[in-house]
């Protein structure tokens, strides 16, 4: 008969048997718990190669002394919770991180504070990892010399939720990550993208807030992405987008809220995207949809107070606009079914002009340009004729 091993708890602290965390880890067996007392620990690089729970009491500080990777995890089933990690080393060659998971499954990283780490949390070829309620605050100044907040590479089934990420290069970075759930994170003030992902299919993003990032959110070369109830706020700049969709197909965007972005959505080569019940408020351009997009369906979205609703670069339109609410709509509804009787053309002539001659922005809202816009509305010549909402709503969609 084999008895199950009894899990024990090992304590680490200045007055305990194990004075360093590494010696605690070395003494532990699979399934043990290593509890770390409050304090300031300067250990070169913690290596976790056993299935243990490593948790800090009162946020003990793990100091990387600007030289080392702080925690490296080499085995599955590890839990790391309640630490404050500071000053990791910096190296673009090795991607030194606060916590880095190498080829492991089922690692849980929760309730940690990471300050001034190069990369924050790095999952390299992991699966079923959970990153929850961490606070990451970087000190990135230059794009080339900074790392990402949560960086995931070649992983699947990740859960990333309730984290706060700021001051890194990219807030959350995904490359070759499948079936991930990203929920309720707040990503703000990162140098480049709040969320950046490439070649990552079947991921779900819900209830996240992306705010004030250098270039907003960028989604590229991915399939079957779901983006639900996220907020995209104040991404300002010529190359800043609330969200940039490039070579994306079969995605769904629902219930997102875009406000005060220079361009809320920029789409290029996007196919079969469904956008429903999103709100676009006070953006420069609500939607820049390039002629290379196909079968994008926009239904029941609210467009309120945007400078330009839709901008495009060509006359080919292979997308559908239906039942949206446009606050610029000036039509009527004779049969009172709450659907406007004449189509709405969301591309204004002036947005086409500004696309061609950016400096013309300085003449925006002058009498003469308003006049040009009105003329164009009656006799469309510059704006794509087929880009229109045939059934615009008279009232807000929701």
């Amino acid at each position, binding site marked *: 008969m084999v008895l199950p091993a009894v899990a024990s708890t090992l304590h680490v602290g200045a007055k305990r048997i194990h004075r360093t965390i590494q010696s605690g880890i070395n003494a532990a067996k699979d399934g043990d718990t290593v509890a770390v007392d409050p304090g300031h620990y300067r250990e070169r690089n913690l290596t976790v190669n056993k299935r243990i729970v490593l948790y800090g009491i009162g946020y003990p500080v793990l100091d990387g002394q600007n030289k080392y990777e702080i925690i490296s995890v080499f085995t599955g089933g590890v839990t790391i919770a309640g630490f404050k990690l500071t000053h990791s080393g910096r190296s673009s060659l090795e991607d030194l991180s606060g916590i880095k998971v190498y080829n492991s499954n089922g690692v849980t990283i929760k309730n940690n504070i990471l300050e001034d780490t190069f990369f924050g949390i790095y999952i390299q070829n992991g699966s079923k990892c959970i990153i929850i309620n961490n606070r990451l605050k970087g000190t990135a100044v230059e794009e080339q010399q900074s790392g990402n907040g949560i960086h995931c590479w070649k992983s699947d089934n990740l859960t990333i939720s309730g984290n706060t990420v700021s001051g890194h290069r990219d807030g959350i970075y995904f490359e070759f990550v499948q079936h991930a759930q990203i929920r309720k994170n707040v990503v703000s003030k990162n140098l480049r993208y709040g969320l950046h992902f490439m070649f990552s299919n079947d991921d779900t993003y819900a209830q996240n807030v992306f705010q004030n990032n250098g270039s907003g959110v960028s989604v590229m070369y991915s399939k079957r992405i779901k983006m639900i109830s996220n907020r995209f706020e104040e991404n300002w700049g010529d190359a800043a987008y609330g969200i940039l969709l490039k070579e994306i197909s079969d995605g769904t965007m629902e219930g997102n809220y875009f406000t*005060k972005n220079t361009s809320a959505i920029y789409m290029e080569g996007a196919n079969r995207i469904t956008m429903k019940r999103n709100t676009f408020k006070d953006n*420069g351009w609500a939607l820049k949809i390039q002629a290379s997009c196909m079968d994008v369906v926009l239904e029941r979205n609210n467009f309120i*107070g945007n400078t330009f609703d839709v901008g495009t670069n060509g006359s080919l339109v292979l997308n559908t606009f239906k039942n949206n609410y446009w606050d610029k709509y000036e039509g009527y509804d004779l049969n009172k079914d709450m659907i406007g009787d004449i189509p709405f053309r969301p591309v204004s002539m002036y947005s086409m002009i500004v696309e061609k001659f950016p400096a013309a922005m300085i003449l925006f809202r002058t009498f003469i340009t308003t006049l040009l816009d009105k003329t164009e509305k009656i006799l469309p010549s510059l704006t794509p004729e087929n880009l229109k909402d045939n059934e615009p709503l008279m009232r807000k969609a929701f």
Partner: protein
Amino acid sequence: MSKIIKYVIADILRNRIVIIYTLFLLASSLTVFSLEDNNSKGLLSLLNIILIVVPLVSIIFSTIYVYNSAEFIELLVSQPLKRKSIWLSIFTGLAASLSLAFLIGAGLPILIYQPSTIGITMLLSGIILSVIFVAIALLATVRTRDKAKGIGVAIMLWLYFSLLFDGFVLFLLFQFSDYPLEKAMIGISALNPIDLARILILLQLDVSAMMGYTGAVFKDFFGTCPGLLFSCVILLLWVGLPLWTSTRKFKSKDL
């Protein structure tokens, strides 16, 4: 001098046109704010009023007023008064009363519905535009003796500032689109007070769109302290220069 100003103001405030102007502003700004469910659309309509109606009323009304008070001015000139102070009093009276009309007509609704930076910028722009177009009107009247011709000149000036100038700039933009025009545009905008006021408001109203590359050039200029100072100085010059020229002209004018 203050006596003349007082008289001019009292005279104008009793004038039916100014009362109608005030009521018109009040009615239209109250409607735009209460009809639209979002305030930004209301502000847009108000922007058009400020950029089109305010200069028009200011320039036409001032022109007509000065022509109509020709006899009164002659009377004043026969008194032991300096011509300069007579002219400046008329200007001050006109500017003060039209600004007051704007303040009551559009300012009150703005302060009630939109007491933000945008609102305040609009309010100040409206007032300075009123004053500028009074100054331009005085220049037009002092240079043309005939009333009909004078009013014609005033209307042409208004048309130029609010329509033709922008058309001309648009033409320039298209013609020279291969060149980096952003900086030049800032300079050109200084040549038209309406444009300058509009850009100042635009930077608040369409801030998201203005943050694009070109917009950022304008924002970097007009949005900063020196830029703001520049715009204020230019706008004040638009009051000062026409006023100074017209005062000089009036001093030696054969009434």
